[in-house]
């Protein structure tokens, strides 16, 4: 083996406590929502069991779905607020491909993920590729919340007015709610994989960073 090059890393603080609370609330509520949602969509045969021992299964799982939904919506509201009023790295201006600096960074991280380059894209905040996907997920989460509220509160006049105006009928809202639920499953798989993969590739410590709020950057790398 060739000589090991020594690299100095500095610890940088990027994620505020609000963002970290958002992250874990969102993650846990998503997990509950996906699992209970799958049951609501297709309750597997529990009929025999339910006859033997009354357990209020659908009622209970729906209750968990709705409870998790409130955490989900609260977390989402926090994140939407931080998009505009969070710290530098939490604002949408830092990670959406809306200027040349971000666009270039977008391509660089894409190349990195496709193994076309070995150069890790060092960013204090999200890489632009990740940020764009997160932003799309927030939009999907908003649609999930609106369709979910419409299904949950059919008797509240302003909600049903909004539901009819946006989706035409409750059935359409339910269909959209169901289709978008695949996006969340898709996201969870890819997000977990990439977080772990990145942890192998670059010693940023992003996983523990989601708890502590800090990452590690090579001392000589400057974000452009």
């Amino acid at each position: 083996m060739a000589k090991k090059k020594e690299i100095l890393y500095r610890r940088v603080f990027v994620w505020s406590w609000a963002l970290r609370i958002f992250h874990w609330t969102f993650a846990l509520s998503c997990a509950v929502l996906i699992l209970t949602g799958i049951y609501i969509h297709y309750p597997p045969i529990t009929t025999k069991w339910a006859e033997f021992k009354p357990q209020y299964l659908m009622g209970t799982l729906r209750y968990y779905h709705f409870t998790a939904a409130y955490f989900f919506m609260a977390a989402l509201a926090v994140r939407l607020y931080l998009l505009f009023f969070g710290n530098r790295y939490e604002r949408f201006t830092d990670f959406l491909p809306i200027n040349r600096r971000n666009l270039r960074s977008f391509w660089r991280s894409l190349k990195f993920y496709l193994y076309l380059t070995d150069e890790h894209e060092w960013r204090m905040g999200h890489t632009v590729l990740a940020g764009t996907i997160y932003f799309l997920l927030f939009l999907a989460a908003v649609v999930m919340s609106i369709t979910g509220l419409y299904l949950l509160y059919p008797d509240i006049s302003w909600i049903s007015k909004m539901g009819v105006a946006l989706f035409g009928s409750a059935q359409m809202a339910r269909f959209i709610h169901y289709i978008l639920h695949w996006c969340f499953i898709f996201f969870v798989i890819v997000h977990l994989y990439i977080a772990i993969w990145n942890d192998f590739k670059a010693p940023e410590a992003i996983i523990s960073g989601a708890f502590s709020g800090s990452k590690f950057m090579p001392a000589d790398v400057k974000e452009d």
Partner: protein
Amino acid sequence: MSRIPFLRMEGLSRRDFLKICTIATATMGLPVEMVDKVAAAVKSPERPPVIWLHFMECTGCTESLLRSSHPPLARLILELISLEYHETLMSGAGKQAEEALKKALEKYKGKFICVVEGGISTKDGGIYCKIGGRTALEIVKEVASEAAAVIAIGTCAAFGGVQAAHPNPTGAVGVGQVLDRPVINIPGCPPNPYNFLSTVLYILTFKHPPELDELSRPKFAYGRRIHDHCERRPHFDEGRFVEAFGDPAHQKGYCLYKVGCKGPVTYSNCSVVRFCDVGAWPVGVGHPCIGCTEPNFWDRMTPFYEHLPKIYIPAGGGIRAEAEKVGKVAVGGAAAVVAAHAAAGVIKKAVKSFGRKGNQESEE
């Protein structure tokens, strides 16, 4: 033609009369003290003239209203209103009928209730539905412009109905979409006659239309979901479902969710008012609700025995795939891609370290 002579039936018993008034009052969500007021409105000699138009439809709404096996309700409706024009019921035809419509329009200008049954064709100027050489579009616009109130009876008149189903070759739409005045929708395929009766009674009793929801349906009849008033609901919450028609769960009366019941997304009072004076309603007798009171139900509520619609999306190379299946494939694909990506990383590393070894050897 002040009323349709052969349908004028004497001898509606007082018992039937009070029973129907009570049901109608309850349907409107009014307390029992109001029965007298409603009955008085029914008995009042002043009967509102009604012009009943038929367009693109099957006439099922009229049929279910008349339901000759249980005539008292139809009799009451026909006693209550003065039907000036109704193509299915009147004896006149052709020119005679045209004249009758014209006369009625002149005589009751601004005072009659216009009831429309059937969708309106709008494509190519509406030429796909013509009566006496005039398009449905022209007729309904003319008649409705003179009416005191417009009621769209049935899902066809309310939302376009079966002829508005994809690909909607005639451009059929509901009446409300071609008129620039408020329309009261009484959807259903067919609608419960009590909902029609109660709406008319409401207008007669209170001199103004009932409160409507965002789809212009009277809230007293369409304000609640089937699912929230269903006798099978405890089975839903308990997780006891019919898996197939005729299975033991079906025989025990469990919830029809998994065989496609649209109760959770359908607004109507079927489970409460029920049909045909025999206390029956679809879910009660073991058939899932098909969502007949909702817009686009032929497109969105089908397949009737699955709880979500099938929407086909073009999936490359001219293949059409169900959106739901695409979702499943995409998730499976994500897992596969993740695995492939990880494998590619391992291979790349192996290749590189192999290359490095080679270099080192040649350096030595």
